[in-house]
Structures are given as structure tokens and as C-alpha cells.
């Protein structure tokens, strides 16, 4: 394993992580809900559900955040690595898998680990493992 020192950004990673943790802390103590993005987006799609309005509000906050971020510091516009059919397949797998597995990177990887939940430790270990394998195959076997 070779560390990519040129792209390693420890301070912004820790600072950004702390903000994500702060948001999760505020949501559980303030509104009493776990900050899992897959559950929030998936739940928002059930428009008639009583839980949908707060989820849509949180989604609006997420979508507005780049505008605020760009006013505060310089943020490069993201460039997607895959396009077209591969991107659609990626989105379908992310959406279906996260709902079936009851969580994603934020629900299991941040909130679940912070709750010391055995289910979330298992889920995070599994999705990290299949993501590592997928990137390995895409970059070093097929690519």
C-alpha cells in the first residue's frame, strides 16, 4: 500500500468530519432522529408520510450547502468518474442496497458506529469490503 500524500488532506477531512458529526448530534438530540441519508431520502419519497416534511427540509439544506460553502471558501465543482449507463447502475445499486441494508455511509458508517451498534459495524465492514473489491476490479483488472 502506497499512501497518496499529494491528495491526503488530514485537516479538512477531520474538520469536515466534525461538522458531519455535529449535524448527526443535533438531529438526534434536537429532532430525535438518526441522520442516515438513505433513510432520509427514501423516507422523503413516501410523500404522504408524516415524517416526510422534515426529511425534505433536511434535503433542501443539503442541496443549498454548496452555495454557502462557496461563499465561505473555495470549493472545486465535483467531477463524476463514471457517466451514462455505469452511473445509472451505480445509483440503482446504491439506492436499493442502502434501503435493503437499512443504511448507508452516514446511517451505518457514522451514526451506527457512534452508537456502537453491532449491526452497523457489520454493515460498514461489508460495504467497505465490496467497495474495495469493486474499485480493485474496475481499476486494476478491467481498467
Amino acid at each position, binding site marked *: 500500500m502506497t499512501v497518496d500524500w499529494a491528495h491526503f488532506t488530514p485537516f479538512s477531512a477531520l474538520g469536515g468530519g466534525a*461538522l458531519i458529526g455535529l449535524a448527526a448530534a443535533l438531529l438526534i438530540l434536537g429532532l430525535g432522529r438518526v441522520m442516515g441519508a438513505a433513510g432520509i431520502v427514501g423516507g422523503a*419519497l413516501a410523500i404522504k408520510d408524516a415524517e416526510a416534511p422534515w426529511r425534505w427540509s433536511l434535503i433542501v439544506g443539503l442541496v443549498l450547502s454548496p452555495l454557502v460553502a462557496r461563499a465561505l471558501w473555495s470549493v472545486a465543482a465535483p467531477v463524476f468518474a463514471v457517466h451514462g449507463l455505469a452511473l445509472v447502475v451505480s445509483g440503482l445499486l446504491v439506492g436499493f442496497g442502502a434501503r435493503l441494508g437499512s443504511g448507508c455511509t452516514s446511517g451505518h458508517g457514522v451514526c451506527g*458506529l457512534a452508537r456502537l451498534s453491532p449491526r452497523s459495524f457489520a454493515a460498514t465492514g461489508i460495504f467497505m469490503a465490496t467497495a474495495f473489491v469493486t474499485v480493485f476490479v474496475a481499476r486494476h483488472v478491467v481498467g
Partner: protein
Amino acid sequence: MKRNSFPLAVGLIFGLGLCLSGMVEPAKVTGFLDLAGLWDPSLALVMGGAIVVALPAFLIARRRSAAWIGGAIELPTKRAIDAPLVAGSAIFGVGWGLGGVCPAPGVVDLGFFNPDAAIFVVAMAAGMLAYRAAVDRRLPGLRLLAQDA
């Protein structure tokens, strides 16, 4: 009012954290997931930083029953590491590795007016609705996987 403005503020802070940490950039995520290439450990520090801050809040939440702005604090109650958890997480990881995008950064990337983000989010929503349909027993082939999810 607070029930709308409070989660909006939470979403803003969450999104600012994703922007600052670089997690909105798919290449930054795949740089972490590519163990065999040049490895960028940043994502591990993002998760670590988030967990350190969130952990005390969840400890407090476990001892409280009411949220600040009203209503009950709801924490997950499921304990079993069951087939849906394992299969769903495995499928999620493949999709995440393929595109370098997970749900929250995908939604934040919409705010950069990125057309690829729109394609990703629509596909992700379709995947979530497909799951819902499976649970509602409208897709019999998926019944087994989703039966106790």
C-alpha cells in the same frame, strides 16, 4: 416552523461538512477505496472525526426520551445481523465503489448544478422505490430478500 427550519439547518451543516471534507468529489472517495493504487486515507479521518463528535450525543440520547424541539427520540431497535443487512450492504458497496458516490454527497452535488448528480440521484431514487415495491410484495422475485427488512 422549527420542525422545518431545524432539519434545514442540520442539512446545511451536514452538507458543509461533506464539502469541506472533499467527500462531494467522487475521485476523493475512490482514492480511499483504491487500496492497490495510490491510497488517500482522508475518508477514514472524515468518519473518525464525525464519530468522535457524534458519540457523546448518542450516549446522551440513550438516556433521554424527548427531543429538544418536541417529540420522542427514536433510536434503532433491531439487533440481528440478518440476511437483508448483509445482502443490502454488499449491494450498496458495489454501487458506491462503481461511482464513488453515496446518498448524501449525491444530493449535495445537485447543488453544484452537476447534471451527472441529477442522473445519479434519479437512479438512486428509482432503486429506493424498487426496494419499496419489493417490500410491498409487488416484485415477487425480491420477496425473499426483503421479507424481514
